[in-house]
C-alpha cells in the first residue's frame, strides 16, 4: 500500500456504499417470453413487449420473483408482504418504451446483511455489510455509438440492440458501510465477491462478469474524524472485482486531494476508466434526471404469502461462508491459506478440479501456484485463463500413471495457456513422453557411467548419495522426460548396490 494512501487514512475516514446490478439466469425475460440468453445476433430475442410496441402488456416472470426472494432470504432480508413495480421515466433509446420497469419506494426485500471476510496481517477480519434493499427491474438494450470512436462525444448516431432489454435484473443496495478504514477498498471487493458467490450458490445467476452480467455503482465519501459525513460521489458501471477495489482507492485519493486543497467535493456520478483506473466526472447530481416514478399500471402487486416464502427458504443451499469453513476443515489448511486461495479467485476452480477427480492437494498446488502466477503476470482473473478443471484432471491422471513428470506438466500448461489445443494434443505435439522402458533407460545409464567411472566406484563403495550426479546426467540426456526415481532404482540395480 502506498504512503500516499496511508496518509489519506491517517487524516480521513472513508464511507462506502455499493449498488450492484446482477442479471438473473432465467430462461426468459422479466416481462415477456423472449429468450434471456446472452449474445445472439442483434435484435433476435425481441417481441412487441420488449420493443415497447403500443398495446403490448408485460407479465411478470415467476422464477425471477422467486430468485429475488431467495436472494433476499440468503441476505437475511425481510420479504415484504406486498409491493409493486414502478415506472422510471427517462428519454434514452436503450429502453424503447421511454421508461424502465423497476421498483422504487416498495422494494421486495429490505433490511438484511452480508458478512464478508477480509485478510489482514492480524488474520481474517469479518465486516457486516448491512443491506438496505433488494429489488427487481429489467435490463436495458445495448447501444453502439457510431462515429466518434465508440464514445458518445463526437458520435454521429447510435445503433441499438434490444436482446438485453428486459432481461431480469436484481439490484442489491447496501447501507453506508462505516468503520472499514484502511480496508475500505478490500471490503468493497470482498463484498462483491461474496455477493457473486452467493448468487452462484443459489443458482439464480452464473454471474459472468466478463459478459457484464454484474455491474457495480460505487459510492465513496471522506470525512475527518468527528466531522459530519462528507459529500459522496457515485462511480458508475464498475464491472470487475479488481475494478471495484481500484475505484474505491482512486476515489479516496482524489477526494482527499481536493479536500486538502480546500476545495469541496461535488455530488456527481463519475465514470471509471478500466485502463487507467481513474474516474472522470459524469453528470452532476444538481442537474440529475427527474425520473417521475409512479406505480406501474400494467402490472398487479406482488404479495408473497408466508407459505411461499417458507417454501423458498427451504430451497436455500449451504451459504458460501459456511461452505468455505467446511472445505477448509476437509482440506486441513490454515485460515491464511484458505483466505489467499479465496482472494486469488481459486476456490471454485479447485472445487471443480476435485469434482473432476483431482486430489485436493494437487488441485490447490496448480491453481494457487503456477496458474496464479500466470494470472498475475497477465493481469487477469484465474477463471479467464484457458485452463479448465478437466484439463487439470487429465494432466494429473497422466502424472499418476507415470506418463508425465511435473516438469512436463508445466510444459502442457504453457501449451494450454497459449491456446495450443487439448491436453492430449499438446502432449503429442510437444513430444512429451516419459522415457519409461527399461532398455532405453539402462542404455542412458551405461553411457553416463562410462563418462564418469569414478562416480560408479564411489557408489559401489557405499556413497549412494553420489548417484545423484548420474541420475542428473540421465535426466539431461533424456531431456527431462524420464522418471528420476525410476532412473535411480535402475542405476542402483545396475551397479548391484542396495540401499
Amino acid at each position: 500500500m502506498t504512503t500516499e494512501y496511508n496518509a489519506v487514512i491517517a487524516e480521513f475516514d472513508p464511507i462506502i456504499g455499493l449498488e450492484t446490478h446482477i442479471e438473473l439466469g432465467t430462461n426468459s425475460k422479466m416481462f415477456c417470453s423472449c429468450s434471456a440468453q446472452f449474445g445472439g445476433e442483434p435484435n433476435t430475442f425481441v417481441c412487441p413487449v420488449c420493443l415497447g410496441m403500443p398495446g403490448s402488456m408485460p407479465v411478470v416472470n415467476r422464477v425471477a420473483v422467486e430468485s429475488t426472494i431467495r436472494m433476499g432470504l440468503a441476505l437475511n432480508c425481510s420479504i415484504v408482504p406486498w409491493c409493486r413495480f414502478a415506472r422510471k421515466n427517462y428519454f434514452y433509446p436503450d429502453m424503447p418504451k421511454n421508461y424502465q420497469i423497476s421498483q422504487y419506494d416498495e422494494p421486495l426485500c429490505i433490511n438484511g446483511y452480508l458478512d464478508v471476510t477480509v485478510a489482514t496481517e492480524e488474520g481474517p477480519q469479518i465486516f457486516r455489510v448491512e443491506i438496505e434493499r433488494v429489488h427487481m427491474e429489467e435490463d436495458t438494450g445495448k447501444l453502439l455509438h457510431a462515429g466518434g470512436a465508440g464514445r458518445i462525444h463526437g458520435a454521429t448516431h447510435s445503433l441499438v440492440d434490444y436482446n438485453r432489454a428486459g432481461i431480469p435484473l436484481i439490484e442489491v443496495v447496501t447501507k453506508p458501510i462505516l468503520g472499514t478504514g484502511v480496508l475500505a477498498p478490500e471490503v468493497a471487493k470482498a463484498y462483491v465477491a461474496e455477493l457473486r458467490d452467493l448468487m452462484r450458490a443459489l443458482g439464480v445467476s452464473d454471474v459472468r462478469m466478463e459478459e457484464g452480467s454484474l455491474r457495480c455503482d460505487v459510492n465513496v465519501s471522506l470525512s475527518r474524524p468527528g466531522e459530519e459525513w462528507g459529500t459522496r460521489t457515485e462511480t458508475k458501471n464498475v464491472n470487475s472485482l479488481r475494478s471495484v477495489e481500484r475505484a474505491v482507492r482512486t476515489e479516496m485519493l482524489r477526494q482527499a486531494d481536493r479536500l486538502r486543497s480546500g476545495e469541496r467535493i461535488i455530488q456527481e456520478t463519475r465514470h471509471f476508466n478500466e485502463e487507467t483506473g481513474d474516474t472522470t466526472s459524469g453528470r452532476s447530481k444538481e442537474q440529475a434526471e427527474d425520473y417521475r416514478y409512479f406505480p406501474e399500471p400494467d402490472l398487479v402487486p406482488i404479495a408473497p404469502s408466508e407459505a411461499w416464502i417458507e417454501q423458498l427458504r427451504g430451497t436455500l443451499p449451504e451459504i458460501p461462508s459456511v461452505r468455505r469453513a467446511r472445505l477448509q476443515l476437509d482440506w486441513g489448511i490454515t485460515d491464511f491459506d484458505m483466505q489467499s486461495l479465496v482472494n486469488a479467485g481459486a476456490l471454485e476452480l479447485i472445487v471443480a478440479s476435485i469434482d473432476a477427480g483431482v486430489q485436493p492437494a494437487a488441485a490447490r498446488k496448480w491453481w494457487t501456484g503456477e496458474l496464479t502466477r500466470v494470472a498475475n503476470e497477465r493481469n487477469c482473473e484465474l477463471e479467464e485463463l484457458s485452463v479448465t478443471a478437466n484439463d487439470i484432471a487429465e494432466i494429473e491422471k497422466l502424472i499418476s500413471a507415470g506418463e508425465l513428470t511435473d516438469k512436463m506438466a508445466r510444459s502442457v500448461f504453457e501449451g494450454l495457456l497459449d491456446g495450443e489445443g487439448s491436453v492430449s494434443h499438446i502432449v503429442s505435439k510437444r513430444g512429451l513422453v516419459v522415457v519409461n522402458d527399461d532398455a532405453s533407460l539402462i542404455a542412458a545409464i551405461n553411457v553416463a557411467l562410462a563418462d564418469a567411472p569414478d562416480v560408479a566406484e564411489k557408489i559401489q563403495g557405499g556413497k549412494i548419495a553420489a548417484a545423484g550426479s548420474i541420475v542428473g546426467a540421465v535426466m539431461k540426456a533424456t531431456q527431462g522426460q524420464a522418471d528420476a526415481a525410476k532412473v535411480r532404482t535402475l542405476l542402483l540395480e545396475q551397479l548391484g548396490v542396495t540401499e
Partner: protein
Amino acid sequence: MTDAAANGIDQDLVVHLGKLARLELTDVEVEHYTLQLEQILGAITSISEVAADDIPPTSHPIPMVNVYREDVAIPGLLQEDFVPGAPSFEDDRFRVPRILGEPT
C-alpha cells in the same frame, strides 16, 4: 388559476417536462399544454375529494395480486416483422439520432 395552484401546474413545470421529454416547445404550446394539464389534473383532483382516508389508493382497476408467467422462452418476432416499422435500421440494429446528454 386557483385550480392550477392546487395542482402545482404552471408554465415553468411544463417547460421542464418538455425538456425531460426532449420536446422543443414554443411559447404558444407551453401556454396551451399548461391549460390542458390543469384541466386534466383538475378532473383527477376531484376524485381525491371523494376518496376518504379509509379508501386506500390503487394503481390497478382490478383488486388482484400475484399474476405470473412461467419461465419458458418462446421465439419472438422476426426482423422482417418489425424492421419495416422502424424509421432506420442498420447492421441488424435500430439506428437512432446522436444521443444528447449522458446515458442514465
